[in-house]
């Protein structure tokens, strides 16, 4: 990282660290100051906002700030960041709107028991989102991407005592977190196939990704991440369900940040992945469907927060569709709309929260006449709604004009997209005024008592956003120069000049805007009938991706239950058989694979008669153990094979082993006889032959495997370096003449000490086992071994 220049770079880590530091401090501050802590906590995003704001001029001139350090050099992974037009505008949105949201949260959550941890989650999310939009290294970006999924899980499920909130949280985590894993696959694919490991490298690579034979795979994986995060059909379900979260969460996550992450990724990747047939087909197709269906569902909803959620889905569809068109004007339109949407949607969500706060309902049918009681909120609402409706002079108007400019070509492709855009926009126009106007005008329904304005922190945020939507449009020259133009340039890959202003010109785009507005007004008037119409037709269909999610999750639980039942049957003999099969396969398989089977040995001639006797004794003992009908026979037979083993040791020059074996074998038989007589158990096998036969076959195979293995080893040349060493130095170093003893107590004394430790621990464990008394009723009272 050698391009460390400029003011922003020096403070880059500080800006990124501020939300995290504030997150750590939040619970403590909140304990002392209650909800007033947000006045202090909001300083963190504000400071970060100001730091980023300092960089605006340099970035507008085309400077790209980069900073970071090498993180995992062996994998070429860096912890690095990049600030250009696109990431700067996103960083400003995240921190700027974040400041207003933290203040708003302070007003909204006042008196809540867990508000401290709420602020922590919000600030953590903010830091994650900030890291995501300024990350340069792909892995760094992925980590922040997943962090947003995790923190949003905490936020959506904040009200965790309600099942709906838990469901919303899990759904969001499964969909966006799963999408994150798809993105990870995409990131790894890019790194593996092209060697590009950072956004900077990708942006400088020209056509490298487009020309890659793996282009389609990379694109689909990246889209998998973007579409899930940005709630494209059919992955949109998590977004409306996330409305279970407290309103500040919705206002923040579902306007400017979380859901825009996917759009950010698409804009980011556009210069490297865009402008291909595949790109221009998949994106508009998904985007258009999402736009129209989302907008219809928005009008259907009766809860104004849900209405807003679906308009967000629709807006994301519009953005994806535009990015899919891939032309310069389309990217400009997307950029302008993205900023405008962040402003008006965050504002309207906060308004919805204020309405809920003031009137204690969000049902549109039971809202009205609030304007007189909540004048400031009403003002903020109407400003935001006008921007959302695309009325001049608001930045929403600039966006809409640019969008129609991008689509005014007489090809079937553009016309199809244009129709979707007009339909969606008209529906969203209606939705804007359903939320921004309807609750405030007309007669006040009977159910609402004492509607009231919230505190300063409640109306301040939406009002600022509404006013800024207008101011930015009025001073559009400066707005384009500093924000939208650098952003669009970064997303398009070439410098882009934007000159769209708030003063309408009489051209096709303006005509289309007027048409949209007229359609919107018409739809607004018929919205109650439209609502019931869409609702009844959806009821007739009866199935949707949301229900599908439930089915999927239930299916998953059932499936894993079945699999667990098979893999972990709870039957010891199954586990044992599986183990034996694995042992046989591993031994015979590896010998077969390495071609290491032993040669056929000659029949041994040098075996003495007494050795035959001992071996015979061993086999007889073994056979008797298996077929013994009563327990005493089994124990005695076990003793026979043990003593035979000891005799083998004795005959082969290992007297120490033989003595130990004799002793251990005697003890084993005695203990076994003591216990067995108490247990009154038959050691014989009562199973029918057809059950014994598979076990016997497997047993023969195991014996064969071990036999062949041993033969192979013995047929190899013998390396006696170690034995030579012990023989030579046993006396010289350790002054002992019994070499085996010397090895045990001198050369490997630590090992022997460990062995003694094992024996001691076993003894203690046995003692404990014997002394334990079974507590609780309903079980047989057991006499312990020592008493009997």
């Amino acid at each position, binding site marked *: 990282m050698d391009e460390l220049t400029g003011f922003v770079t020096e403070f880059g880590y500080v800006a990124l660290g501020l939300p995290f530091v504030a997150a750590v401090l939040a619970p403590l501050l909140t304990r002392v100051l209650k909800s007033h802590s947000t006045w202090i906590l909001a300083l963190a995003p504000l400071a970060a906002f100001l730091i980023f704001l300092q960089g605006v001029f340099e970035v507008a001139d085309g400077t790209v700030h980069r900073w970071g350090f090498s993180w995992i050099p062996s994998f070429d992974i860096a912890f690095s960041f990049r600030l250009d037009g696109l990431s700067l505008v996103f960083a400003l949105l995240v921190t700027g709107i974040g400041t207003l949201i933290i203040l708003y949260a302070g007003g909204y959550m006042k008196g809540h028991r867990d508000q401290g941890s709420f602020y922590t989650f919000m600030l953590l999310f903010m830091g994650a989102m900030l890291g995501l939009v300024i990350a340069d290294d792909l892995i760094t970006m992925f980590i922040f991407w997943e962090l947003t999924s995790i923190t949003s899980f905490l936020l959506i499920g904040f009200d965790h005592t309600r099942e709906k909130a838990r469901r919303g949280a899990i759904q969001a985590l499964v969909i966006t977190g799963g999408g994150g894993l798809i993105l990870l696959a995409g990131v790894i694919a890019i790194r593996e196939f092209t060697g590009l490991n950072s956004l900077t490298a990708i942006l400088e690579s020209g056509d490298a990704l487009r020309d890659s034979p793996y282009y389609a795979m990379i694109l689909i994986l990246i889209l998998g991440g973007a579409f899930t995060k940005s709630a494209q059909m059919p992955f949109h379900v998590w977004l409306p369900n996330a409305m279970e979260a407290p309103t500040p969460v919705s206002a923040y996550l579902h306007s400017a940040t979380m859901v825009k992450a996917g759009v950010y990724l698409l804009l980011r990747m556009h210069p490297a992945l865009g402008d291909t047939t595949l790109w221009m087909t998949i994106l508009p197709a998904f985007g258009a469907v999402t736009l129209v269906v989302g907008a219809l569902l928005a009008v259907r909803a009766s809860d104004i927060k849900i209405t807003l959620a679906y308009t967000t889905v629709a807006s994301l569809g519009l953005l994806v569709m535009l990015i899919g068109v891939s032309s310069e004007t389309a990217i400009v339109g997307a950029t302008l709309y993205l900023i405008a949407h962040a402003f008006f949607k965050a504002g309207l969500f906060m308004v919805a929260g204020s309405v809920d706060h003031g009137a204690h309902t969000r049902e549109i049918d039971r809202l009205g006449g609030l304007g007189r009681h909540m004048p400031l909120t009403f003002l903020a609402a109407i400003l935001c709604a006008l921007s959302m409706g695309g009325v001049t002079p608001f930045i929403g108007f600039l966006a809409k004009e640019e969008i129609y400019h991008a689509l005014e070509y007489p090809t079937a492709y553009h016309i199809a997209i244009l129709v979707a855009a007009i339909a969606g926009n008209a529906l969203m126009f209606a939705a804007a005024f359903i939320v921004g106007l309807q609750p405030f005008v007309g007669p006040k329904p009977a159910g609402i008592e004492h509607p009231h304005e919230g505190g300063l922190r409640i109306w301040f945020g939406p009002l600022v956003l509404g006013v800024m939507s207008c101011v930015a449009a009025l001073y559009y020259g400066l707005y384009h120069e500093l924000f939208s133009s650098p952003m669009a340039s970064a997303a398009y890959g070439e410098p882009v000049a934007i000159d769209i202003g708030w003063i309408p010109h009489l051209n096709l785009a303006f005509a289309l805007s007027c048409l949209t507005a007229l359609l919107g007004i018409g739809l607004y008037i018929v919205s109650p009938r439209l609502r019931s119409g869409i609702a009844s037709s959806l009821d007739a269909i009866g199935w949707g991706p949301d229900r599908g999610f439930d089915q999927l999750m239930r299916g998953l639980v059932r499936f894993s239950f079945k699999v667990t039942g098979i893999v972990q049957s709870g039957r010891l003999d199954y586990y044992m058989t599986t183990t034996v099969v694995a042992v046989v396969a591993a031994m015979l398989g590896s010998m077969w694979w390495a071609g290491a089977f032993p040669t056929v040995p000659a029949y041994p001639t040098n075996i003495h008669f007494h050795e035959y006797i001992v071996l015979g004794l061993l086999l007889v003992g073994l056979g008797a153990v298996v077929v013994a009908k009563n327990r005493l026979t089994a124990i005695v037979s076990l003793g026979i094979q043990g003593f035979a083993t000891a005799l083998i040791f004795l005959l082969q020059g290992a*007297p120490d082993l033989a003595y130990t074996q004799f002793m251990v074998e005697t003890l084993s038989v005695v203990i076994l006889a003591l216990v067995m007589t108490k247990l009154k158990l038959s050691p014989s096998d009562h199973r029918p032959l057809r059950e014994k036969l598979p076990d016997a076959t497997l047993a023969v195979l195991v014996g064969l495997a071990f036999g062949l293995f041993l033969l192979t080893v013995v047929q190899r040349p013998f390396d006696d370096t170690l034995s030579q060493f012990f023989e030579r130095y046993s006396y010289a170093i350790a002054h002992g003449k019994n070499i085996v003893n010397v090895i045990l107590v001198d050369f490997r004394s630590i090992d022997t000490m460990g062995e003694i430790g094992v024996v001691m621990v076993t003894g203690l464990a046995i003692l404990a086992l014997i002394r334990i008394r079974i507590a609780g009723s309903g079980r047989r009272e057991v006499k312990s071994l020592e008493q009997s």
Partner: protein
Amino acid sequence: MELALTFATAVLYSIAFYLLMSKHIIRMLLGVVILSNAVNLSIFINGRLTTIAPPLIPSDLSVPVDPISNPLPQALVLTAIVIAFSFFAFLLVLSYRAYQDLNTDDTDEMRVAEPKEEGLPPLGY
């Protein structure tokens, strides 16, 4: 002798695993004892059976002159025998306690850790 012992060891393995695959804890215990013998003999055979002279240094010398049997596997097996015995003793007491508590030595009926009638886990959120 190596060859004959290898054959005997293979039989030991067969019998040990056959007993281990049984459903009765007692038979499995017998299998454990036989398995430890099989493993010990394997280690022993791996050190080669060249001579029957024990690995001792004659009292008037500081290194052995005549060939002696390999001391290293003997040291390893000596440790192994003792460990195997501890293992066996522990398993025996464990099965004894299990039998007292559950009144069975049939592994099919020992389902405390993994009960049979578990039913589906909760399907909600």
